[in-house]
């Protein structure tokens, strides 16, 4: 049971959602945008957050878009992971959406996973590998910006802003891909390592989650991964070091274990995406 009281808004338009957010703030109620609610309800029940108002984005038509237009695949932030998983537009994303269990995936959304508080945010990885544009709505109006400009460790939105859509160039969405997810025990566990990679003309692009405190893509790491003057095993080793970050160390896995998985994952990525030659 969620012990505290809150106000619930179900807007039909972006403008209504922004108005509800501003209105709640003016009333002194802490507003949260609500998507799948899997994090908001469980965190509220445990008293980790106490939203004063929830603004439900799920029924705003722009947040539900799933289409191809003008050379891009467009994903609404309010799509559930099952809807994304069943969509053929971006095969690596469909695979990445296969986290948690089938029932939870009927509610959990793309926007909620990317904007959520837990450090994994696995569905952001495929987007980080492409020239994805993020459509945002906020008190200053709507804007479209490269996702890379607003995602650094986490999604950095302005106050009152929310994610409406993500737009991926189709040419990149169709690139050969590789994904490897390592967990402690069950497939449903949070990841010790999730690697997502694409084989582009200019070489392998790679982003990962689970090993460090947040999802990461690093140009330095990719430079090493694609340096064919080094033997593949040496490349993987040097690339792992090039992250320059400390691996997480918790009850799911020690830092040493995660580092070993990372090394193996990088070796596999090079092998699978033809980077050995």
């Amino acid at each position: 049971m969620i012990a505290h009281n809150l106000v619930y808004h179900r807007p039909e338009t972006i403008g209504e959602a922004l108005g509800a957010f501003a209105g709640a703030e003016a009333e002194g109620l802490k507003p949260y945008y609500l998507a799948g609610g899997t994090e908001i309800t469980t965190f509220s029940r445990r008293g980790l957050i106490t939203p004063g108002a929830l603004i439900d984005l799920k029924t705003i038509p722009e947040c539900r878009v799933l289409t191809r237009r003008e050379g891009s695949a467009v994903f609404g932030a309010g799509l559930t992971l099952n809807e994304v998983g069943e969509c053929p537009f971006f095969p690596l994303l469909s695979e990445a959406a296969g986290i948690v269990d089938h029932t939870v995936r009927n509610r959990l959304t793309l926007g909620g996973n990317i904007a959520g508080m837990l450090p994994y945010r696995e569905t952001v990885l495929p987007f980080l590998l492409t020239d994805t544009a993020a459509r945002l709505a906020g008190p200053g109006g709507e804007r479209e910006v490269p996702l890379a400009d607003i995602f650094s460790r986490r999604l950095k939105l302005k106050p009152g802003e929310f994610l409406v859509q993500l737009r991926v160039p189709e040419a990149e969405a169709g690139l050969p891909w590789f994904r490897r997810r390592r967990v402690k025990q069950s497939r449903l566990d949070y990841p010790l390592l999730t690697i997502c990679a694409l084989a582009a003309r200019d070489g392998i692009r790679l982003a990962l989650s689970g090993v460090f405190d947040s999802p990461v893509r690093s140009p330095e790491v990719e430079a090493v991964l694609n340096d064919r003057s080094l033997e593949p095993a040496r490349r993987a080793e040097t690339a792992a070091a090039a992250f320059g970050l400390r691996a997480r160390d918790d009850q799911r896995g020690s830092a040493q274990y995660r580092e070993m998985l990372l090394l193996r994952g990088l070796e596999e990525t090079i092998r699978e995406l033809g980077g050995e030659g």
Partner: protein
Amino acid sequence: MITYRGQAAIRLTVNGEVREVVVRPADTLLHVLRDRFGLTGAKAGCENGDCGACTVLLDGKPVKSCMVLAVEAEGSGITTIEGLRDTPVQRGFLEQAGFQCGFCTSGFIVNAHALLQTHPRPDRETIRDWLESNLCRCTGYEGIEKAIAAAAGPRE
């Protein structure tokens, strides 16, 4: 825009019947089903999205009702275990002894029923994908798997 605050009267369609109920906007669907409607088939296990004991159908899709607010379910058709009568999955659970203490059973049945409505002849992989949403602490899953296999037609 619809707004609910304080004590709000909403209409929910539960097992085909439209019912009015007064809720707090913070009330989860699980608690409203159990405490307001007396439909106690959906169980409060972990209330954290892990166990699936609270599974109900929203417009035919299984969801964990501990993570859905009752106000969010307005406008959707809600099906609980009480709304399923003598379905093949229920018969399968009886015939194959798919339960012991029964705490997890309604969640499993509701989920498996939705599975068979969507994939009448599911392959192994599809059964695994859907059913890993539910935990059982008694049976070791063998009886549950047999129950679902008995209810399903030949494989896809």
